[in-house]
């Protein structure tokens, strides 16, 4: 149970499926897909993000928590009660026969934030309020960890091979329009359930393969904007960066790719003056947000799924399209397994995002 | 066509060019032997002129339109086709000093040790860079062309 020990370093398997039309489908596919890449993980972490799984409670916040013990659960629930109206709280359904070394208490809460609590803070949006609270609970309450906090979506993760985790959480029983999955191969953490991917904040989730050499400065950069990175994972950094750049700074989702994997100065010089000006300004101002080192990530929120490689493509990333479905994965095999004959398959260029956007939010 | 350019403003007046020129044209080309040896040193074919802080090293300019060539009555003075250097065939020279009379640089001198023949810069024929240029610590003389 080593939490907060040194920086997480891991190689990994990633896979993501999105049905842009918003058609929801069972978690079976994603489990099969990630299972193909068994070799890419080592049993120290697997996880999934699913969007559109709680349609009948789609306007309520849904928190997934893991507790090491009852006391942490009580402390946390007190904090929650304090700030929210708890509409429903139950155990996250799991398949207990699945063998896993360790299993924390896993609880699920549907919440509505108390306006008066939000207004305690000077010009806080509800999101600011939530982020603030989540970070505090995660940082302050020992043994408790909020690993999912969006609306109509959920993160399911733990220590084990991803297919086992999927099985454990009975994901084939959920239906989502966007699924992402991750299998971990950490080299220095014994593996802590919270450390598994996806990492989620509000409805942001990130799964990530790689190691970010710029971690130190990314962390300091975020600090400048009030984000305290407490889990020593690159994934956490990436989530915060998206939260900062898209939610707070209102930058278009795809533009963020030009910050995290900024084009080289020389490339910018070849662009049209106006575009060049934009790109250079982004890089100058968000220099601290540049993710340096090898990575491929799949970032998702309720409307988007994006696959992104580092600026010199040091980690694998493949994408396919079939009909309305967008597939992104570390290996093509992971796609072929569940979609044998895609209309199109390609290897995204370094730093070139693969974007999937929901057409019409029905669900 | 090789040419030595003089950068007067950078000549520090150390006279290393003279020292190395003398060595280069001595019998053994060894600086210590040349200076400490018994036999007499050759003349330096490059001469540093110095007045106050102004100084420069001057050697034959190997003029395109060389007066010494025209003035030489023996044909001793000739231009090397490869390097374009003006050279003196010492076997032919009889020491009439016509060349000295017409050289506006005063870059040709009488070599009285070697009998009545003139002594002048030969651009260190067999060296790829003349020693005065090679050894100038401040590039006050630089070689142009090849």
């Amino acid at each position: 149970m080593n939490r907060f020990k040194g920086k997480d370093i891991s190689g990994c398997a990633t896979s993501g499926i999105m049905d842009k039309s918003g058609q929801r489908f069972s978690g079976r596919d994603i489990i099969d897909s990630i299972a193909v890449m068994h070799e890419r993980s080592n049993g120290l972490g697997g996880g999934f993000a699913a969007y559109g799984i709680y349609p009948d409670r789609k306007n309520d916040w849904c928190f997934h928590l893991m507790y090491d013990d009852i006391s942490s659960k009580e402390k946390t629930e007190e904090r929650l009660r304090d700030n929210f109206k708890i509409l429903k709280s139950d155990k996250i359904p799991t398949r207990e026969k699945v063998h896993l070394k360790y299993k924390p208490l896993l609880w699920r809460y549907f919440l509505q934030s108390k306006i008066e609590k939000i207004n305690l803070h000077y010009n806080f949006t509800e999101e600011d309020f939530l982020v603030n609270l989540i970070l505090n609970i995660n940082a302050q309450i020992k043994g408790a960890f909020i690993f999912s906090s969006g609306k109509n979506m959920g993160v399911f993760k733990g220590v084990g091979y991803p297919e086992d985790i999927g099985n454990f959480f009975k994901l084939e029983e959920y239906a989502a329009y966007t699924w992402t999955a991750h299998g971990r191969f950490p080299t220095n953490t014994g593996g802590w359930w919270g450390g598994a991917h996806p990492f989620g904040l509000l409805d942001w989730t990130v799964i990530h393969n790689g190691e970010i050499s710029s971690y130190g400065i990314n962390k300091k950069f975020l600090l400048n904007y009030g984000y305290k990175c407490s889990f020593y994972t690159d994934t956490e950094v990436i989530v915060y960066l998206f939260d900062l750049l898209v939610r707070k700074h209102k930058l278009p989702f795809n533009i963020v790719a030009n910050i995290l994997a900024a084009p080289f100065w020389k490339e910018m010089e070849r662009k049209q003056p106006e575009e060049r000006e934009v790109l250079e300004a982004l890089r100058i101002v968000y220099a601290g947000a540049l993710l340096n080192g090898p990575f491929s990530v799949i970032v998702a929120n309720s409307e988007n799924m994006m696959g992104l490689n580092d600026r010199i493509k040091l980690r694998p990333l493949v994408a396919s399209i079939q009909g309305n479905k967008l597939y992104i994965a570390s290996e093509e095999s992971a796609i072929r397994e569940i979609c044998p004959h895609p209309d199109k398959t390609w290897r995204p260029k370094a730093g070139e995002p693969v974007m999937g956007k929901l057409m019409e939010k029905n669900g | 066509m090789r040419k030595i350019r003089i950068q007067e403003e950078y000549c520090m007046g150390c006279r290393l060019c003279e020292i190395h020129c003398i060595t280069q044209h001595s019998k053994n080309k060894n600086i210590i032997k040349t200076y400490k040896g018994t036999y007499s040193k050759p003349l330096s074919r490059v001469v540093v002129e110095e007045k106050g802080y102004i100084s420069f090293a001057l050697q034959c300019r190997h003029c395109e339109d060389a007066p010494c060539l025209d003035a030489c009555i023996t044909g001793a003075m000739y231009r090397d086709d490869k390097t374009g250097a003006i050279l003196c065939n010492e076997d032919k020279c009889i020491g009439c000093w016509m060349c000295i009379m017409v050289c506006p640089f005063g870059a040709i001198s009488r070599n009285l040790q070697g009998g009545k023949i003139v002594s002048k810069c030969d651009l260190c024929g067999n060296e790829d860079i003349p020693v005065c240029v090679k050894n100038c610590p401040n590039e006050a003389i630089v070689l142009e062309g090849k």
Partner: protein
Amino acid sequence: MAKRPIPTEFIINRDENQCISCQVCVRMCSNDVHSYDSETNEILSDSLKCVGCHFCESICPTHAITIKRSQSEFKMNANWSAGVITNIVKQAETGGVLLTGMGCDKKYPIYWDHILLNASQVTNPSIDPLREPMELRTYIGQKPDKVHLNNKQNKLSLNSRLSPQIKLEIPILFSAMSYGSISFNASKAIANAAIQLGTFCNTGEGGLHKDFYQYGSNTIVQIASGRFGVHKEYLEAGAAIEIKIGQGAKPGIGGHLPGEKVTAEIGRTRMIPSGTDALSPAPHHDIYSIEDLRQLIFALKESIRYKKPIGVKIAAVHNVAAIASGIVRAGADFISIDGLRGGTGAAPTVIRNNVGIPIELAIASVDQHLRVEGIRNQVSLIAAGGIRSSSDVIKAIALGADAVYIATSALVAMGCNLCQRCFTGKCNWGIATQNPYLTKRLNPEIGQRRLVNLINAWSMEIKEMLGGMGINAIESLRGNREHLRGIALSDNDLKILGIKAAGEA
């Protein structure tokens, strides 16, 4: 009355078998150490006059000369070293303040040499700079918290322009060296090198010689307490303006260019009568507080229509972090911090050797302080004072500097051997002198070439080190102390430097 002799600092070793009495040394030594004896055709040398600049040694065609440190030793005494004693003797003779040149040479710890860099293994690949692009470009200037974009039918454009920045192709600038403290040729070499390298040089408080206006686009013009050579055209000529409050070699005191160095040209450039001492006061007499500084900064910004960044240069002193954050809030676009070992043309020895703190600690605490205050991005930090190599540069940047200033290294590249006699104006290398007989010894073309070589070599090394860390853009290392580890440092040093000890994960 005969002076009490001071033991010679150096001994001139002349190998008689090698010496050919060519008199090059005689002609070249500006301190008249060597002389020619026509009777014996021998060269005589007076060790007492030797300052140890090694010019003769380097130019002797037969390598007959070796300059050695004098063996003369006083009775062993840890407390009363030879240096201490000779200083006392000198002062007893002259009754004056001891002057010296270049940076502090005392045996204080050099933190650069106690910091180790990281490299990638297995889990992430190192990058080969010969195969992959490596970016060192750096922008100096104030950065906003966020970028505002207009999005007209998916056509993005900047909503608000960035405040003025200067662009460096390599995060190394040439630090302030005034025309006056160094020769015209030296200044010219540096300016041309700056242009060729895509970086900047700094006028110091020497003003800008009319021939140097052409280099304005790569020049940072300085305003110091003496206000020498400051006028409208001067301010407009530069790419940025730097207000000099202090200097690492002599924090808290002013500058002094002796009259004999003030030639007609220098007088004209500084707008003072030639031959008179150029004395710059300790403080700016219009800056007695931070709000005065703010006024000056904005007066300058007004004067150049907010078109160029304005910086402030301070010496690294004990509360440098707090001072720096004050300066940020006063509106500076960049802060230059000059450490204990920063050089100078002339400074009182006692000040140079005892005032200020090392740049390594200063830059670390300033960067940290500004980040905690959330104003780090509002300013660029330039670290100066004792940067000796590419590894010093990269460590400074990892500690939080945006770029570094070098000066001593540049002078060494042009010939200087740190004899520390700049203030005498007799620099044999033609650098720190105005004597026309000496200044022509520095051929600016050679100087430029050597400077460019040095910086290119450094940037190649920096790229190698970056690549090793798996980083291909310098901004990903800036302030990224995760890549540094301390060795043989106290916990406190580590805390201040904000780095872990070697061996810690």
